[in-house]
């Protein structure tokens, strides 16, 4: 008796659960079981093609005939054979009377290239779905793409790079000198270092005065000489970050948070990139075969904007840019402006960091080839405020290329032609050139807007790698 007593709690628990479970029973209509007369896996269609090693979510639609109108519930996951790593799961639905499609959700990460096969069985029929898994694009190699192939003073740049390297300690060199990889090349950002923490290379904050002088000589040799462009512009962007650090931004900001990396050993023949970047500025100069194979992605921004004084010097790095963009838009006729103005809104640039190789397939706005010579000159002047950032020899070469492609280049904008209001946006989109400029609210300096802009090249980003 006392033994029974000690079991009582267990009975009681079970009883409680049963009571609870019975409290409200869902009434479900039980349909007749689903059946089809044929399944045609050979005619299956897929929503997308999986890529080896990349997480995939898609569907496979398998045609059936002779459906009996019954509903069916979700299936269990069928693992793929051949190429493994994927599963196909029948999605619950109801059959039509006659012909229709069964839809399977395909998810997972394929582990090789080839055909993933899923043996399926439904409504009395079975067959095997065959899904092709493609190879991932390699994106870069040690030999590298030709890219732009622009002539530059490679001997001078390499010798200054080596001279800078010679001033560094062994551990600094370890941080600076990396092997070339597209992955590292793509690790630039327009976020302050505290939020990015993804940059590779050597922080400028670690440099001694001598080392900094050697670095600045290299920077100068790779950047242009015009006023407020090139070398002056990048130094102004660095000063802007110091200004932010001193005016409320704190130690997350400042030129010391800019990183220098050599991706590949500097050479007058091989592939290497001189990468320099931080919060509001990124230079990605790729060299290959003694030529400049890529000058982009180049990110340009500044806060404060438009002008500021730091260390007794007045800076205005992006004023020429906004002036020339605005002049370009204002040179359009009212009708042309209507064509150029997009209806969507832009609160940032479109092809920011991480958005590599995803240029739009169609171009919007006004085709520069339809404009007058005077109007065309304003477009070139706007482009020049970016190409002039490169050393003068390369700058001339790149501008010549973009000028040659000018007629097939399009310009568009959002917001106002002054480009000073938050959300204002302008885009120059050519066969090669891609320059976008967008006005945003201030972050540290709250009472003023600040611009973000990026220069990319459809074929020359990362030197074509």
């Amino acid at each position, binding site marked *: 008796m006392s033994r029974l007593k000690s079991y009582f709690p267990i009975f009681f*628990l079970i009883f409680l*659960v049963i009571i*609870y479970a019975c409290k409200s029973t869902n009434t479900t209509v039980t349909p007749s079981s689903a059946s089809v007369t044929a399944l045609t896996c050979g005619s299956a269609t897929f929503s997308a093609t999986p890529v080896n090693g990349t997480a995939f979510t*898609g569907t496979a639609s398998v045609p059936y005939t002779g459906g009996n109108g019954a509903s069916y519930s979700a299936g*269990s996951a069928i693992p793929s054979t051949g190429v493994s790593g994927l599963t196909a799961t029948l999605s619950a639905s109801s059959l039509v009377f006659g012909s229709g499609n069964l839809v399977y959700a395909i998810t997972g990460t394929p582990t090789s290239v080839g055909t993933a096969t899923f043996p399926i069985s439904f409504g009395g029929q079975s067959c095997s779905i065959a899904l092709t898994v493609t190879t991932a694009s390699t994106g870069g190699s040690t030999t590298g793409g030709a890219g732009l192939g622009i002539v530059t003073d490679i001997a001078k740049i390499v010798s200054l790079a080596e001279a800078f390297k010679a001033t560094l300690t062994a551990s600094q060199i370890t941080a600076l000198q990396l092997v070339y990889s597209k992955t590292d090349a793509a690790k630039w950002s327009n*976020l302050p270092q505290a939020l990015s923490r993804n940059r590779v290379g050597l922080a400028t904050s670690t440099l001694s005065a001598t080392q900094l002088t050697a670095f600045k000589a290299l920077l100068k040799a790779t950047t242009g000489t015009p006023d407020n462009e090139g070398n002056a512009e990048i130094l102004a962007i660095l000063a802007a970050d110091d200004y932010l650090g001193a005016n409320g931004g704190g130690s997350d900001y400042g030129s010391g948070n800019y990183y220098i990396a050599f991706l590949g050993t500097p050479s007058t023949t091989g592939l290497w990139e001189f990468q320099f970047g931080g919060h509001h500025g990124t230079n990605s100069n790729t060299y290959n075969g003694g030529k400049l194979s890529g000058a982009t992605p180049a990110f340009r921004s500044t806060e404060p904007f438009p002008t500021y004084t730091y260390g007794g010097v007045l800076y205005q790095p992006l004023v020429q840019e906004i002036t020339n963009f605005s002049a370009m838009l204002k040179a359009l006729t009212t009708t042309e402006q209507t064509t150029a103005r997009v209806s969507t809104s832009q*609160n940032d640039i*479109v092809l920011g960091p991480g958005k590599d190789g995803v240029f739009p397939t169609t171009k919007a706005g006004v085709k520069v080839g339809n404009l007058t010579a005077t109007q065309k000159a304003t477009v070139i002047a706007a482009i020049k405020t970016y190409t002039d950032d490169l050393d003068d020899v390369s700058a001339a070469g790149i501008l010549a290329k973009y000028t040659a492609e000018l007629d097939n280049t399009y310009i568009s904008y959002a917001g106002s032609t002054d480009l000073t209001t938050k959300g204002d946006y302008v885009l120059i989109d050519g066969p090669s050139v891609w320059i976008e400029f967008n006005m945003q609210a201030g*972050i540290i300096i709250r009472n003023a807007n600040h611009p973000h802009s990026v220069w990319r090249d459809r074929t020359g980003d990362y030197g074509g790698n």
Partner: protein
Amino acid sequence: MATQFLQILNQRTMNFNKIFKIFSFLLPLWGLGGFYLFAHPMPNSIVLLNIHQDKIEGKIQLPLGELQSAIGLGVNDNTTNLVNRLGGTIKAYLLQHIHPISFDHKPWSVNIGDMNVVETANKVTGDYKELIVAFSMQPPQYADLRNFYFKYDVIVHQVVTHKILLSIKQDWQQGIVREDSATQNVGVIELDIPTGKIKPFQISLQAGGNWQGFKNMVSLGIGHIRGGTDHILFILTLLLPAMLLVEGKKWTKFIGTKNTLLNILKIITAFTIGHSLTLLLGSVQWINLPRKPIEVLIAITILVSAFHAFRPIYPKKETLIAGAFGLIHGLAFAETLTNLQLSTKQMALSILGFNVGIELMQLLIILLVFPILMQLHKTRYYPQIRQIGAIMMMLLALAWMIERIQDKPNFITELIA
């Protein structure tokens, strides 16, 4: 917003650390992994989904600055009474831009619920205001709840640089139920730049099932006991005098191994019945008490049991008292379950699983601790050990009581934390 998430996560992690410090010897390592967070550099929208048996509920966090760029109406410039003034308009707008559809293109039904405005401070994006919208969506008959296209283009249809971070907050079948497990990211809805279109986002949730859900509730139950220092200490307090006889208001002789074990069995089952009952009643929300008084009551139960371990105050009534105290502790467990909003079947399985987990953990504690107590009992110092243990427990219970009344930790609770 990200900082908010991180703060919450940090608090949870602190709790975990505390538990690890004290009881890491009790258990094999417990996986904390499986969750990660999106960095949140721009004011993106966030959509959090709770997957239920027959519908999906969720919360949408819309940055008002971005919403204003999309629909105007000064929704960011003037947030005073925003929901009262423009709630209807915003609701109609949302319904135009949220279209879940089944794989065979049958539309789901969508309901927009409560909205409220929250202001968020963010170092990168500056301070900004966001609108939190509750919504729910339900598939048509026979359509699959766990596989569908989420056609969602709120804000991004107009603001092409906008991004929507999509996360699963709760999915019982997959075992995503823990309050502290943050969220599971499923992806980002954004403009497909090459085509200039926003593609329908396919949501295909991993098939889990009842067994998976049950197993997870067992581990939630285990985690719950392990997570509650107070529950563990309460059980230890019950064990301290379990092998002793009461004579003249004092703990005296050993009552024998068999009687001791029987004693423990009775006490623990009574406790289990107690907390199962209130867990059940609480889970179906027949009773619903605020958290604070329950937590204080739990501290009181520890205080009383500790005093009883020091000097018997309810001899021969241990079983009854343990049952009564179980009722109180169950109310605290119930809160974990009610927040999940489960279906009847899921709830039944959950209560069972949660109880099994709690029992397993209690048994484990008893198995680990009781042999030690039995050994200690054989030494002549056991009366002192028991008394000192009881006094320490009383002090701790008092400290917890004060902490829970004042809503702030004191030096004793921080010592154990």
